[in-house]
């Protein structure tokens, strides 16, 4: 006959195995809920640091086909170039949000903004932004006008803007809006006026 204390010890050990097994299963399922590094399309840019400042974003609204000026408070670094990048990242953040008025592709990112004197700004966007952009004259020109007008409104002295994708020239954004040329900031400002008026 098996001694009583031995039976109790075996039962406790079996119970411990079951509890640990259940716990291991829970932990594993929780881990698989996180995307792998390769799938994660979220920007890897570190958050900006600096005092919070008020900026004006020209936000596109697809439903009415208009641009609307919106004030936002975002942390801005002191350097002019980094400020330009942060302003545009804030704009793209608006478009990437869940209730975006002008949705853009997941993973869209401003890679860099180069300010070249005199008065030239070069916006370098990533491939996800351009390749996933919706095709259409109005959709594309809302995006382009929004980027350029936001940049020109918050970074003084910008006269011309060039848009690159992954550091390279591209003919159009998604089949319509021309990216091969330099944009005249004052001409885009007039266009933004038309788009704001909803003419």
């Amino acid at each position, binding site marked *: 006959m098996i001694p009583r204390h031995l039976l109790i010890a075996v039962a406790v050990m079996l119970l411990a195995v079951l509890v640990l097994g259940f716990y291991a299963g829970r932990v594993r399922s929780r881990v698989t809920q996180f995307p792998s590094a390769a799938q994660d399309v979220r920007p890897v840019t570190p958050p900006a640091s600096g005092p919070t400042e008020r900026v004006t974003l020209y936000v596109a609204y697809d439903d009415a086909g208009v641009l609307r000026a919106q004030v936002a408070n975002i942390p801005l670094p002191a350097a002019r170039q980094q400020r330009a990048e942060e302003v545009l990242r804030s704009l793209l953040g608006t478009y990437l949000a869940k209730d975006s008025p002008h949705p853009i592709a997941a993973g869209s990112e401003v890679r860099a903004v180069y300010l070249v004197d005199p008065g030239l700004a070069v916006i370098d966007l990533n491939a996800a932004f351009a390749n996933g952009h919706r095709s259409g004259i109005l*959709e594309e020109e809302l995006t382009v006008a929004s980027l350029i007008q936001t940049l020109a409104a918050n970074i003084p002295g910008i006269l011309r803007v060039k848009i690159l994708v992954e550091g390279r020239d591209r003919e159009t954004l998604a089949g319509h809006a*021309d990216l091969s*040329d*330099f944009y005249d900031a004052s001409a885009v400002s007039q266009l933004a006026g038309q788009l704001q008026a909803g003419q």
Partner: protein
Amino acid sequence: MPDRTHTRQRVHIDCWVFTLLLALTLPAGSADEKKIAVFSPAATYSILVVDRDGREYAGLLEVLEPLGQVSSRTDGLHWTLRYNQVEAEFTNGKKRARIAGHDFDLPANFVLENGRRGLVPVAALNYLLPRILGTSVNFNPAARRFFIGSVAVHFTAQISRTAPPRLIMNFTAPVNPSIATEPGGLRMTFNRQPLVAPGTSTLTFDDREISSANYSESNGVSEISVNGTVPLMASFSNDGRTITIAPAPQQAAAPPPAATPSAGSVTGAGPVTPAVPGVALPTAPLQPRHFYAVIDAAHGGDDRGATLSDKLLEKDVTLALARRLRQELEARGISAMTLRDSDANLTLDQRAIFTNTAHPVVYIALHASSSGKGTRIYTALLPAGGENNGPFVAWDTAQSAALASSQAAAQGVAAEFARRQIQARTLSAPLRPLNNVTSAAIAVEVAPPGTDVMDLTLPAYLQNVASAVANGVAAGRDKLGAPR
């Protein structure tokens, strides 16, 4: 970067290079393309013929689209086409087809491409189309020319024994061929007229200076060659129903023979020379063809444009709309040329070059979108830079001198849309090739009238849009001026 861009793009608009490019590019492209010309009371158009398994095939949707309301759906290997009330069913890789409940055997297998484009052997069109269209069809397979209904234009030719002699050709409907003079004769090419052969293909005249005329047709085009021993000239009268051919005056015979540009993928109709009613003898040398409007169906070929739905591509909507717009303009007496009349590839630079070479009064690009409602009319948003240098005009800002005319044209078209209660908005846009075109240039982007994007295929809606654009252009003729 700016230097490179500007160096690349500084081009003299009227430079002979454009003419050379046009002369080299168009005939080269057209020589390789097999086409079927379709002539019907509703539309005249051409579609491309493709070779599959050593046989000639044509897209059935492309054939029927300009003729009426047509739709298709794919279910696995089965492809069903609906034209008005007639339904036709085909199976990929099978010869058996079913039209309006009756079975037919095609001479070769039906081909379904990309899950949506149904190709039928060209030889089968002769008996497929009468059953689908419910009307008589006359097909000349050797020349690849289709006549739907009673549209044929006949002609007679008679020599007038005057001094100098005149060959008087009378047509049963107005014609506007492109004309080329060449040593030993004169050649008239009828791209868009349903001209049919006379009783005999060679007509001989008992005259030393104008000896004979030959009729020929191939690849959708008919041609009349008039043979002579002296340089010949043609003049039009009787509203384009009569062409009189006579020896050229002495001073006009000296220059080397000139040919009008031939139309490759570029098709259109327009007056060759101003018709002089009642005047039989030529009084002026031949003029190159002038088109009032150039219509550009945006995208095409590999460039599909926006994917409007899983069944609808922007390039297909723009082509259907361009065909209707050309008809609407021509119905108002406005000569119009379409830059593409098939699913052809054209770069933005090519579109601008062809347009600038044609010197139209107005260039109209057509786009389609699933976003928003109604229409949007765009003029060029000119890029930065663009310094002209003497007679050389910067390519990127070639539109600048014509921008005011473009805006007037856009306003005219928008007013017509408003009159028809179609929502319209005028904007500038960074949209090539608007900024490269030297004449008035607008782009019309058509969105569905309601929430269903498939409404963009509704013939009534497309017709209304095309008619509004044509009315807007016609109303602005006084402001825009005459063809150069």
